[in-house]
């Protein structure tokens, strides 16, 4: 990799940069909020219905999640592959959340009715912190984006699952969101 002398310092192309050099890089939450707001408006124009809109957000998140998985595994777990459900869930809860949002997720629970259901909760998801959903669309949850990211991480680790986002606001944390993870039989 040659450093060509030039009047303006040229940045190294992104695929040649060191993976570990930029860990812990932060971006402004306001900048991301504007970007996410535009993504939501873009999806809303093309969607026909709330379910479709949620699916589009989830797809956006899916594309991010595939890359997040590769990056995090390469940075933090180069020699071990998760092959237990609890292991991969813990990886998402602490590692993935920490790299995306700067803190661990707030809780990881096992569903009570079915064996293949788990829940990860976040008391204040940063991406939907500024979004007020109007009454007509109250079923929509903007955290469908995060659900997409988690779904991609699970699919990529050979634990196919369906992830959906639900608002479980409490008095103390009105924006609390829970991701419901339902594993397919093939992965368990």
């Amino acid at each position, binding site marked *: 990799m040659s450093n060509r002398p030039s009047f303006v310092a040229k940045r190294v192309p992104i695929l040649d940069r060191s993976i570990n050099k930029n860990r812990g890089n932060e971006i402004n939450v*306001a900048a991301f909020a504007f970007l996410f*707001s*535009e993504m939501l*408006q873009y999806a809303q124009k093309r969607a026909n219905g709330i379910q479709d809109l949620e699916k589009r957000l989830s797809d956006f998140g899916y594309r991010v999640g595939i890359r997040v998985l590769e990056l995090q595994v390469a940075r933090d777990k180069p020699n071990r592959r998760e092959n237990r459900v609890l292991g991969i869930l813990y990886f998402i809860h602490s590692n993935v959340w920490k790299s995306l949002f700067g803190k661990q997720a707030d809780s990881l629970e096992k569903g009570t009715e079915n064996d293949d259901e788990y829940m990860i909760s976040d008391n204040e998801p940063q991406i939907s912190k*500024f*979004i*007020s959903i*109007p009454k007509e*669309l109250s079923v929509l949850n903007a955290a469908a984006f995060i659900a997409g990211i988690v779904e991609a991480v699970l699919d990529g680790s050979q634990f196919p699952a369906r992830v959906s986002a639900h608002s479980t606001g409490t008095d103390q944390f009105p924006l609390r969101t829970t991701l419901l993870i339902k594993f397919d039989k093939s992965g368990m």
Partner: protein
Amino acid sequence: MTIYSVFIINKAGGLIYNKEFAEGLAKLSTNEYLVLAGTFHGVHAITSRISPVPNSTGIEMLQADTFKLHCFQTATGTKFLLAADPNHQNVDAALRRVYEVYADYVMKNPFYTPEMPIRAELFDMGLQRLIKQLNSV
């Protein structure tokens, strides 16, 4: 030192938000609020032209016996009006903080169309919290 009410006027002069935060204020009908906003918008435009000093920005403070009204105009022409009691010291700082709440919960809301009336729950809650905090000081 209490804040009585907040008004937000879009760049065309239409009222997009108004809220009262004190008891005992005179009740106005929605139409009267709209007329109030339009009148203020007009007065603001006139004052910025007739000012003896060139490059004036228009009316910033209006003081009466029972209240004072501060106006903050953003670079895009949106006006924030804050009516407070006459001895309130820091209305300007309060206005800046209202602007911050607006920038956070209205501008970043994908379901908000600019220049339309504001219907964002988080904005109402945030503003309520801010005013409660300012009034209790």
